[in-house]
């Protein structure tokens, strides 16, 4: 089965603290922080968007894959904040990294799991022999309406995965998806900010699909939580992630390295790809990783990944996820509002 040949991450350096947002809206920062398990979130600069984030992540992935970009047969960018409604982000990325013109490219959208949907698409094409290598990226500059609870978490970041059969650093054992039509979170054409179903986004949406995919994955692989070295999940906030991990029977030692939301917020399509890149940065040969993404609308993709010996050769070939998380500059709400385009100019 296909595996990961190279991976790369990127998180914008600007941060805004929960306290700063709460101050503007008259919320109690402590109860928000404790309730959501989020301290601060990343903010894209004015000149950063899903395309720039995806390009940086892709370049980092290429450094670790150590392949000629011309060998890429597919580029998929999963996001819910593609800069253009019509015109792909994937072509911008493919051109920027020198992968054009002999390849296929497309944008994907499935709320927060478009990145893992892209990984599955590339896995299929590699396993079928249609292509040798493909690149799947999950990246977002997500939106939260001013004053909405989402504003405390909606952030920016992404990671890319080059998938192939040769020279892998980690190999997929299997993938399993769990999908229904569940309208917990959506944004219609032309709307600047998404709508969400409040508490409906919990049990009938996130948990139902995450647990559904996890159960399917355990059954399909005949495995149990203690068989894994790491477990990581989609993380709209820290609370959902920790509750899901604990309920499935994983220990903090297994799930803590995948939990990035408290320090960078919810990077939407970038969330599970970034969680995985952070784990791969630390992983040892032989480690087994349990992965469940979640996208509103709704569905979860599950993966079991086995790390192999080549991981140690590539970890230092590009900046690590933690490097990006640690490299931070705080902005206040006014600058954040300007960077996020929340100030309407005439």
């Amino acid at each position, binding site marked *: 089965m296909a595996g990961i040949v190279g991976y790369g991450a990127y998180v914008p350096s600007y941060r805004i603290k929960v306290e700063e947002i709460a101050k503007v809206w008259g919320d*109690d920062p402590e*109860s928000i922080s404790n*309730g959501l398990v989020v301290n601060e979130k990343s903010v894209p600069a004015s000149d950063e968007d899903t395309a720039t984030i995806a390009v940086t992540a892709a370049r980092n992935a290429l450094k670790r894959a150590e392949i000629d970009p011309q060998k890429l047969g597919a580029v998929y960018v999963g996001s819910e904040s593609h800069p253009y409604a019509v015109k792909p982000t994937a072509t911008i990325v493919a051109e920027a990294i020198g992968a054009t013109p002999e390849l296929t490219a497309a944008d994907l959208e499935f709320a927060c799991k478009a990145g893992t949907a892209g990984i599955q698409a590339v896995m299929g094409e590699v396993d079928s022999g249609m292509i040798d290598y493909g690149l799947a990226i999950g990246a977002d500059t997500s939106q939260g309406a001013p004053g909405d609870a989402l504003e405390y978490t909606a952030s920016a970041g992404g990671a890319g995965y080059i998938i192939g059969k040769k020279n892998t650093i980690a190999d997929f054992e299997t993938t399993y998806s769990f999908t229904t039509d569940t309208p917990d979170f959506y944004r219609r054409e032309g709307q600047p900010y998404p709508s*969400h*179903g*409040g*508490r*409906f986004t919990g*049990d*009938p949406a996130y948990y139902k699909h995450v647990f559904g995919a996890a159960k399917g994955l355990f059954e399909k692989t005949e495995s149990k939580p203690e068989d894994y070295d790491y477990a990581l999940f989609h993380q709209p906030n820290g609370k959902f992630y920790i509750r899901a991990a604990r309920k499935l029977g994983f220990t903090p030692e297994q799930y803590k390295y995948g939990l990035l939301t408290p320090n960078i917020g919810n990077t939407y399509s970038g969330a599970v790809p970034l969680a995985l890149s952070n784990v791969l940065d630390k992983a040892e040969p032989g480690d087994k990783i349990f992965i469940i993404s979640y996208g509103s609308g709704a569905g979860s993709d599950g993966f079991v990944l086995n790390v192999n010996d080549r991981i140690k050769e590539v970890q230092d070939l590009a900046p690590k996820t933690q490097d990006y998380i640690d490299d931070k500059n705080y902005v206040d709400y006014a600058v954040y509002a300007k960077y996020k385009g929340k100030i309407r100019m005439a």
Partner: protein
Amino acid sequence: MRDVAIIGVAQTKFGELWDTSFRQLIADAGLGAIKDSGISGEDIGAMYVGNMSSGLFVNQEHIASLISDHMGLNPVPCTRVEAACASGSLALRQGIITVASGYHDIVIAAGVEKMTDVVDATPAIATASDQEWEAQQGATFPSLYAMIARRHMYEYGTTREQLAEVSVINHHNAQYNPNAQFPFEISVDKVLNSSKVADPLTLMDCSPVSDGAAAVVLCPAEDARKYTDTPIYVKASAQASSTIALHDRKDMTTLDATKIASKKAYDMAGVTVKDIDVTEVHDCFSINGLLAVEDLGFTEKGNGGKVIEDGQTRLDGDFPINPSGGLKARGHPLGATGIAQACEIVWQLRGDAGKRQVDGAEIGMTHNVGGTGGTGTVHIFGRE
């Protein structure tokens, strides 16, 4: 006037019932009560359904027709009754009056609310206050009850911990109620440290947003034993109106509607408050549970916090209150609450309440409030 008995009861689980629609909730409760009573559909003379705001919560009015139709009970006359959070007990009262008058023999009184189809229930709930003088000025129900709480603390030295105890006791009882929304214990610390909603009230002082339905079957007392060995008799049904707006009250810390309705009910039933073995009160916010203890006459005004703190309202206390978990922990699907309270008292008087059973309960009472007390109802039930 004829005496009236309850011969069947049913309540759905209360909670965030994402997979159950408005019509399914009321059908489940209605059919459950019919089954519990042993009557058949053809026996039903009329139905009254309490519901506060199906229009705002699920975009559906004309629910009387929807309900009789969906339950397969056409052409039984069905009537919706509305008095905000007291809608359920008003439907019960309409049913009782109808049977007592001799107009119909078998009547179903039910209540239903589906609140979780909207993201924020607060604006819909706020329509139970005075729109022009309260809601449009920014007052919400938590803030109105917070003002009552603050005044009670100022007038009588009631403490934050005493208010929290109302929620703590409710949660304790709810762990034994399989239909409760929150069947688990909480501590005073948990109440005090939960998110602030409207000072001094925190999240754990407030009843939740809930879906649910409940129903009871009424018949003339003289016929009750044809259907059941354990009929529960309606000994009093009383209702009183008061000012809808809080600022028009002589005393912010007294719900006149509760006081007057309970006095009428005690007279009607020929009992005093000392005769009541078990009570379900309307604790939409912890402060309202405390006011009820005073306004129903269990203790004098100002002493509510103390008797609650002393454990007198616990299951083994002098006057057990809310064995079901109350609005706080059983849940509060607005229109269903008054009927769910009656269901709980029926189970208590039948001796069917399991681990939350109040030993030897012979006489029980329900207390249901609309808004901040614009409507108050008190019902008294007995085994004889």
